[in-house]
């Protein structure tokens, strides 16, 4: 399954980029994050509380940021497991200046396992979109703050 979307953020591209690469910001912005511990350059152990339809659980896993092309592109790879199953997703983010803001195009191919793969499969699309948009909204707020502090 392939999911994708785009969101226009009202913040300059370098600020968006900076926010995306700051663990503290990520910990605040990724919905449901209860822990994000750096384990190396661009690698984290994560704990995320998530509800996918009737399936609720705490995912434990790793987040890695790779293939960075500042400030235009990065790949966020998430691998997490919960009692209800697991998910492995490589999400590609592409950033592009649009007017005074930044257009973020994203695409991901989540691979599900366990109960998630069956019961959750039909719900993962909308849930991913919703979560990504919520994440980017939060990044937008952080990036705007960065931008205003620079002025």
């Amino acid at each position, binding site marked *: 399954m392939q999911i994708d979307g785009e969101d226009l953020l009202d913040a300059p591209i370098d600020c968006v980029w900076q926010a995306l690469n700051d663990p503290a910001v990520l910990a605040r912005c990724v919905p449901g994050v209860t822990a994000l511990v750096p384990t190396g350059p661009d690698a984290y152990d994560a704990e995320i509380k998530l509800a996918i339809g009737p399936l609720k659980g705490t995912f434990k896993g790793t987040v890695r940021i790779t293939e960075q092309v500042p400030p235009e592109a990065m790949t966020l790879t998430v691998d997490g*497991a919960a*009692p209800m*199953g*697991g998910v492995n997703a490589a999400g590609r983010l592409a950033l592009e200046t649009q007017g005074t803001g930044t257009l973020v195009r994203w695409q991901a191919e989540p*691979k*599900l*396992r*366990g*109960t998630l*793969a*069956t*019961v959750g*499969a*039909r719900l993962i699309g909308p849930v991913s979109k919703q979560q990504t948009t919520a994440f980017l909204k939060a990044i937008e707020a952080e990036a705007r703050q960065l931008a205003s502090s620079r002025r």
Partner: protein
Amino acid sequence: MTTTTKMIGQAIKRREDPKLITGQGQFLDDVKLTGMLHAVVVRSPYAHATIKGIDASKALALPGVVAVFTGEDMSDINPLPCAWAAGKVDNNLNTPRALAVGKAMHVGDGVALVVAEDRYIARDAADLVEVDYEPLAVVVDAKKATEPGAPQLHENAPSNIVMDWECGDREKTDAAIAAAEVTVREQIVNQRLIPTPMETRGSVARYEPATGEFTVWMTSQAPHVMRLLLAAFVFGIPETSVRCISPNIGGGFGQKIFVYADMAFTMWAARKLGRPVKFVEDRAENYQSSTHGRDHITDVEIAGTRDGRITGLRIDTLANLGGYLSTIAPGIPTTLYGRITTGVYKIPAAHCRVRGVYTNTAMVDAYRGAGRPEASYLIERMVDRFAAEIGMDPAEVRRRNFIPPEDFPYSNGMGLLPYDSGNYGPALDRALQIVGYDALRAEQAEARKQGRYLGIGLSSYVEICGVAPSAWIGLPGEGWGAGLWESANVRVHLTGKVVVTTGSLPHGQGLETTFAQIVADELGVPYDDVVVEWGDTSGTPFGFGTYGSRSLAVGGTAIVKTVAKVREKAKLLAAHMLEARVEDIVWEDGKAFVKGSPDQVKTLGDIALQAAVAYSLPEGMEPSLDETTYYDPPNCTFPFGTHVAVVDIDADTGAVSLRRYVAVDDVGTVINPLIVDGQLHGGIAQGVAQALTEGAIYDDDGQLVTGSLLEYAVPKASLFPQFETDRTVTRSPVNPLGVKGAGEAGTIASAQAVMNAVIDALQPFGVKHLQMPATSERVWNAMHGGTRGARS
């Protein structure tokens, strides 16, 4: 009820139903034992992975958890046996263990076992078991699994091939196809199905340390066979120390024939812990780890003449058998499929090659019809393809190629025992007459002019029932390596009440009723005086169980033969009591009297009492009216018939609606028409569902996408019209009752009737074939994209 009316042929209601439909049945999950523990399996979320470590410490810390076991812990017992390898060829056997060791081969493969004081604690604790997996490359498709570069699942199975088997005459077939006027080629997929019995599977095991004896309650269609396999093969203990009991069973459809990991691990854990252990799978587990059915990819060619004679049939099938082999998996696509692929037709040259293939999916084994639905679907689709190719009516092509009645017993050249009896024309004619075939064809032509799409599909089928004859199935040629006879015991109590025990058993098909009807007639006693017992290995003589539509043809015949022994002994004793010669004794309505003196009678009760008290018996006669028979029939039976489906296709949405369904079946003598109709209705529903809605889907990572009843499209009642059933009766010469069998016929006949109708309806769009299920999406694509959607 009196016996002056014959019971055989009466449509009486099933005597087991009041109990079963009012919640009074005793099913596996109703078994509750003192001190019983509950087991839950930790299952692999990966389709193929190395198990690098299992940490159970958190689970063990949960109050109420008694133990957590892994596959290594159970290494003192053997893997589950494969009891039916394909005949005469090498079989690269790999069977599952009680729990996986080292590697998980499919999603749902059992990796660890949590045993706790109650089921909820065990379920919660299973989530706390941490398993370290290293995911491996996955293959789920049988064709891809055989291609170069595919992940290799088992060291002993190069290219993931289980076996490479064939039947028929290859050279003759190649020559016939090369020389043919017309040949038609197709790739036909028979998609994977999940049997979905209403009751899921499970086991309860109890161990008596003092005697070393196990008692195992199981949802099994073959408790005697399970006892043999578990004792002799898995545990290496005497059969006498295992008692297997099948309580009421909520449907099986084949899925409950086999030996399963849970039987072994509940026994192992009960022995280890000294307490009874229960395991009941939930629906998701049933879907992931109990057996599936079908899953064939077949390249097939049919050859013939322009005037409608079929001259050759060449078949090359890949049968997906899953990550391991289930109990009789290789036997299904070989003996029960390849050998009957010529169907009801006299085809001079035919050849069938079958390769079994390992993939990272649940095991595939017998599912209602077991091989025969795949065979009849294949030949019936190809006959329609051939008819379309030469522009001849499909009914006419069938008629021209039917095995003529004078050819029976008929050998089809595929290594099967001869078809016992058959007369295929009248069943076809009757079905066409009921459905109003000519009028429908006229309506179809008219409808097409108006942009409406109506399709008529035929299916003329033959199947193999009463799968038994040991001299055939037991030969090395068929790979089974055991007999398949059946047993019966009949004893008459002192009061004249009759108890019948059978080595077969009912798993939802009403055998208590059918068998009692037979005994009532054969012994001349009231139907209500006959009790049928089954399912407990310590209470019934050894028997092979219920599958392959064999319970009546084989088990029922064993009962008839036993009743005859009881009757003969009763007559001997009556002669003694009446001081007459046995030759002069008349047996009528359960009573004996001397010819010409019908006033002075001895009832069965009088005789049974005399036999039991035994103070005055003829010289040399043993006390008691109690006889046993082990019956091995000379042949299988071959029911047949023609089904016709009529469908309407919505031109805007591609939705298929089944307008009518006519089934004319010949199952030989009918003991209880109500039960036969019930069996046919259920069978037809399952076949129609394969054609229109069902299909197990794995994604490329081996995740079972159709993992619950939300996603797996079991049909709803609204899918079906009222089935119109009728019969012809051709007695089977194989057994004294003349019965053939009806348990699977509906499923074997129906999928192709519906698909032939769908494809017939789509003929104006140039659609020649469409894979099942014919969902509206697939049909719509076929209507709009020609072959693009059609071949997907």
